[in-house]
């Protein structure tokens, strides 16, 4: 009991510490001072009266939302004497694997840099700055020569690293036994099974209304949709993050989605946020980074070729170029197993005073990175708001999809969850695919790393991401991947090669996400 209390007070202390540095704190202070003018505030009961005032005026709600936002990424309680690396990632072998993966990426980046004789960063000449400023809203029209640039890595390179992960304390043995994992991932992490998933995703059950199912043309809107929209409007009026998160588990109506996501992510466009974005934009104009070319190449290769996202090409540059210069993103490395790559000023290798993080936000983009931003362009049209939403989505969710960690939403756990689900509930299919050399994870990995962006139709993708926000977890990606295999099981049983299996699963654009999930979780005989 005492331990729990002291844990709780530690958590509270840490969150208070974090919030003290935020603009919300300054605003609350100002509001408190201003409220002294009000007649209902009496000196004798100052504390209670101000608290009451905050409650009525909605400032308490804002504080609640901020606390809730911090809690959503708060690492699970650990030993008070745990060093900071443990908060990033408790398992040593995972930390080591992430470290060596990072070294490889950095080596690749540095060698590209030397090969092409391009500096990692350079200041733009004034003429070039002017030109870029003029072209800011249509950077997509630029066609720089990017043929020599290669993406630093692609998802399948990352998959190879994950396949080779081993826990040195776990005796796998050379002989096959019933304990052997038949899939590609060979680390023993705890993942949920279907009964646990049913409990976790209880709101997706057959008897609960869902957007994505119960708003289809055959269902009269009076049954579910109208009421759901009404509740959504009420949640928005109350401006309560936690309520919004609960509400969105059943899906968000199209018209309310942009505001609901902003509420859940606790994004409000304050003047200082817009100013911050403009500052980042100035940084882009003044300095050119090597990663910019990588970003350009990625956008041209992926989003620009997508039938639906090509329209938003310009927004993608405006977001991603600013993103790489945003040092506030470095904050998320406290709970990310990854660490930002360090670079040294020329000639001062090893001297800490001359170390800089490269890129400034510590995130090196890989092939397909721009697809995290593309679906958001559907909802947000104001560049600074779009930017804030993307940044928050990244530091809450997307970073877990390309760093090695034991977190239940980390990509390693997702892969293991996917393989376990398939092995347990579709053993014949799993075995067949394994026999023909088409390990299922080889096909589904790219879906999960991109959170299905670019594979599903946009409206279905947004319904899926509603649930990611609602459950504050990426596990639904693994469940959906398994559900897709289950759906196409009959065709997959007929194939005889990896290429043929890929072909069966090449086009997911006609899939309806929610019925698939519901059937897999709640209507399959286990």
């Amino acid at each position, binding site marked *: 009991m005492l331990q729990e209390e002291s844990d709780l007070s530690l958590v509270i202390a840490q969150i208070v510490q974090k919030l003290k540095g935020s603009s919300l704190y300054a605003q609350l202070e100002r509001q408190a001072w201003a409220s002294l003018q009000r007649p209902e505030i009496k000196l004798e009961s100052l504390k209670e009266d101000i608290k009451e005032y905050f409650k009525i005026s909605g400032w308490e709600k804002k504080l609640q939302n901020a606390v809730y936002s911090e809690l959503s990424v708060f690492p699970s309680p650990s030993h008070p004497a745990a060093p900071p690396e443990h908060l990033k990632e408790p398992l040593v072998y995972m930390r080591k694997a992430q470290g060596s993966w990072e070294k490889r990426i950095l080596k690749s980046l540095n060698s590209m840099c030397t090969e092409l004789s391009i500096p990692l960063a350079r200041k733009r000449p004034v003429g070039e700055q002017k030109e870029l400023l003029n072209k800011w809203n249509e950077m997509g029209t630029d066609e720089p020569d990017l043929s020599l640039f290669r993406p630093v890595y692609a998802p399948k390179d990352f998959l190879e690293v994950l396949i080779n992960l081993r826990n040195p304390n776990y005796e796998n043995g050379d002989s096959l036994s019933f304990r052997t994992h038949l899939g590609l991932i060979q680390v023993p992490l705890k993942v949920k099974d279907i009964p646990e998933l049913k409990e976790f995703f209880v709101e997706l059950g057959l008897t609960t209304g869902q957007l994505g199912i119960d708003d289809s*043309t055959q269902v009269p809107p009076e049954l579910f949709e109208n009421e759901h929209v009404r509740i959504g409007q009420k949640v928005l009026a109350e401006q309560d993050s936690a309520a919004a998160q609960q509400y969105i588990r059943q899906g968000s109506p199209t018209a309310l989605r942009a505001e609901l996501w902003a509420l859940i992510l606790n994004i409000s466009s304050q003047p200082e946020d817009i100013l911050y974005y403009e500052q980042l934009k100035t940084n882009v104009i003044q300095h050119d980074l090597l990663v910019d070319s990588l970003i350009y190449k990625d956008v041209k290769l992926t989003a620009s070729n997508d039938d639906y996202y090509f329209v938003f090409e310009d927004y993608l540059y405006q977001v991603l170029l600013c993103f790489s210069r945003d040092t506030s993103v470095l904050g998320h490395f406290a709970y990310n197993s990854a660490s930002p790559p360090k670079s040294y000023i020329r000639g001062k290798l090893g001297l800490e005073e001359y170390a800089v993080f490269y890129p400034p936000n510590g995130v090196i983009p890989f092939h397909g990175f721009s697809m995290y931003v593309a679906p958001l362009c559907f909802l947000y049209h104001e560049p600074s708001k779009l930017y804030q939403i993307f940044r928050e989505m990244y530091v809450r969710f997307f970073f877990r999809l390309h760093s090695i960690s034991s977190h239940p939403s980390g990509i390693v756990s997702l892969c293991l969850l996917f393989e376990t689900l398939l092995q347990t509930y579709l053993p014949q299919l799993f075995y067949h695919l394994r026999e023909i050399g088409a390990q299922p994870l080889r096909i589904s990995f790219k879906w999960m790393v991109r959170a299905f962006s670019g594979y599903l139709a946009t409206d279905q993708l947004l319904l899926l991401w509603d649930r990611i926000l609602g459950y504050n977890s990426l596990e639904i990606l693994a469940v959906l991947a398994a559900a897709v295999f289950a759906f196409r099981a009959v065709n997959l049983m007929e194939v005889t090669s990896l290429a043929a299996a890929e072909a069966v699963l090449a086009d997911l654009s006609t899939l309806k996400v929610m019925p698939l999930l519901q059937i897999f979780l709640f209507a399959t005989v286990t």
Partner: protein
Amino acid sequence: MGGSEGVRHHPLQPHPSFPMPHSEGEWDFYWCDVSWLRENFDHTYMDEHVRISHFRNHYELTRKNYMVKNLKRFRKQLEREAGKLEAAKCDFFPKTFEMPCEYHLFVEEFRKNPGITWIMKPVARSQGKGIFLFRRLKDIMDWRKGNAGKKLTSLEAQPARSTANPSGSHDARSSDDQKEDIPVENYVAQRYIENPYLIGGRKFDLRVYVLVMSYIPLRAWLYRDGFARFSNTRFTLSSIDDQYVHLTNVAVQKTSPDYHPKKGCKWMLQRFRQYLASKHGPEAVETLFSDMDNIFIRSLQSVQKVIISDKHCFELYGYDILIDQDLKPWLLEVNASPSLTASSQEDYELKTCLLEDTLHVVDMEARLTGREKRVGGFDLMWNDGPVSREEGPPDLSGMGNFVTNTHLGCVNDRKKQLRQLFRSLQGQKKASS
């Protein structure tokens, strides 16, 4: 049956009931070219059951100058009969002047609105050919030096004369059959819409398909699918010479240096409708789409009395609609031979399904009862009167919620609907035999 190139061959092949004709002239169903029509329609005998895919004088609707005339006349009539408010519903066409005969009226309007942009379009060409933008009368001096301009100069030398027949319709041959020797191409000068709705900084227009089975009485169907065609470059009024910025035809975009064939630069209407709904809310979108319904119906009504209504004829029109920043739709033009070549897999599927459903509605096999409100992806939009989404007799009192039976950009579960439809028709046949 005869037919021409493109996607048309594919869906028509599996129809066992349509044997190929043995000789020229021996056909029951002809998807013809307009040129064939012009030359042969008048001296071709057609049996009762025969169907042909164009109306004899469809150009009343599809040639820009005729359409403008017909619409203006219809608007005047509406104003006389039903008042200004009703007539204002016809204001979906940007101010247009026929050139060269309305040149002086154009100059008057031009002078009243200095600084706005105008677009000059040849009347009978397609795929964006010959179109240009201008802001100063100086800019059309070059055009005046060309053939149409020469005609203008000679016309200016003559006393004013109307080129329209008293009945209001036009004879296609009379425009060629002038006193002058030079074969002249007519143009229209139209007010350019300077505030188009932009997505991702790009301009786009909408292509919508309307199937007219007869004009008297007017029976028209609206296809649920369609697409938005994007210009490849970002919209700006500073470069009116850049064709690629302003013209959204795929044919023009295909020649743009930015064009990548894989892109296709098209969005299906469903995606477009969802995008708008998430940005402006469902009510605004409902209003926009019902304004578009208004465009289709009024434009057809305006030519209803002049089109030679032949029971053998039907026509699939491709409407080009532009949305401006106030979410007001504008009619750009109507095409009688909308392109049926596909630019992507999705496009191919849309067009094959469109043709299949057209054939279902035309109903050569006489399977339908004639009382259907929906066939595959087509919804019956007008049946000598508005068609309501609700079942039962229409609520003509004007009160109550009349929602038109159109579902543009909505879910198109046509396969399912066709299955149900034909199953119930079979059932009805069995029951009556």
